[in-house]
């Protein structure tokens, strides 16, 4: 039976349905949830989703519920090993405690990217990031 479904694009996701999955989006967001459905574009339906943020050896979760993710924004979809899930050497803290650090980190990353883009533009002949149509 397995051999009838080619291991290409969304055919590979059949085995992931009803499993707890980690989804990483293009904007860097990490979502954990149960994959309930998908289609040929790898649009995903995630149930009981929560977003995780990390800072050093701490992490925090925020519950989001039912998600419908447009496939093109997905970078990675991976199954979570329920046996090893709780073995992470990280300490969980309250979301609101960690959020400021997470935001600061994001801000720093963004500024770093900007500086890099500026340098590439001025010295290496690259085009500017974020030009017309670049955001999509």
């Amino acid at each position: 039976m397995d051999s009838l479904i080619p291991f290409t694009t969304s055919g590979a996701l059949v085995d992931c349905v009803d499993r707890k999955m980690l989804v990483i989006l293009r904007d860097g967001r990490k979502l954990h949830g149960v994959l309930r459905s998908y289609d040929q574009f790898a649009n995903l339906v995630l149930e009981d989703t929560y977003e995780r943020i990390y800072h050093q050896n701490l992490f925090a979760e925020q519950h989001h519920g039912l998600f419908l993710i447009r496939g093109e924004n997905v970078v990675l979809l991976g199954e979570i090993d329920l046996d090893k899930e709780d073995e992470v050497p990280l300490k969980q803290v309250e979301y609101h405690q960690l959020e400021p650090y997470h935001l600061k980190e994001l801000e720093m990353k963004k500024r770093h990217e900007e500086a890099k883009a500026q340098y590439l533009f001025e010295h290496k002949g690259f085009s500017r990031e974020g030009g017309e149509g670049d955001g999509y």
Partner: protein
Amino acid sequence: MLPLSLLNAAQNKPMLVELKNGETFNGHLVNCDNFMNITLREVYQTSAEGDRFWKLKECYVRGSTIKYLRVPDQLLDSVKEEQSRAREANRGARGAPGGRGGRGMPNRGISHQSLSTLLMSNHSLQEDEEEEVDRWVGVSLEAEDEECNEGDQAFPTITIRFFFSNT
């Protein structure tokens, strides 16, 4: 339940839409299509930084600009319920009085010989592969007569099973 049918089922439900550029739209879904284009009503728009807000009476979002949608948790359950109800209703309609029995062809109607001809034509086998067909040791036919209703043509549902030999 495909993602887009879930979206379809979310009509008139509140939802949060985040665009690829980070802007979010909170509102009730009015309509959507298979491109994921959507229209919302009574919308609160939030800038990507989350520092500015707009209230819109109505808005249209092009599907390709969407990052994700958040819909109410109960939606999945209600859709599943809806589907099973629809299936039940469908079954009820098919099993209406007089609908059973039908005029299905008897399952003995197809001989082994004509079936191999049929198989060959379907698989466009070459002449020299004809022998191959005979080596399909068993072919079983099951006609499910009770599936045929009055309105159906005289084509019973036929299940064809092949048993291959390893020799």
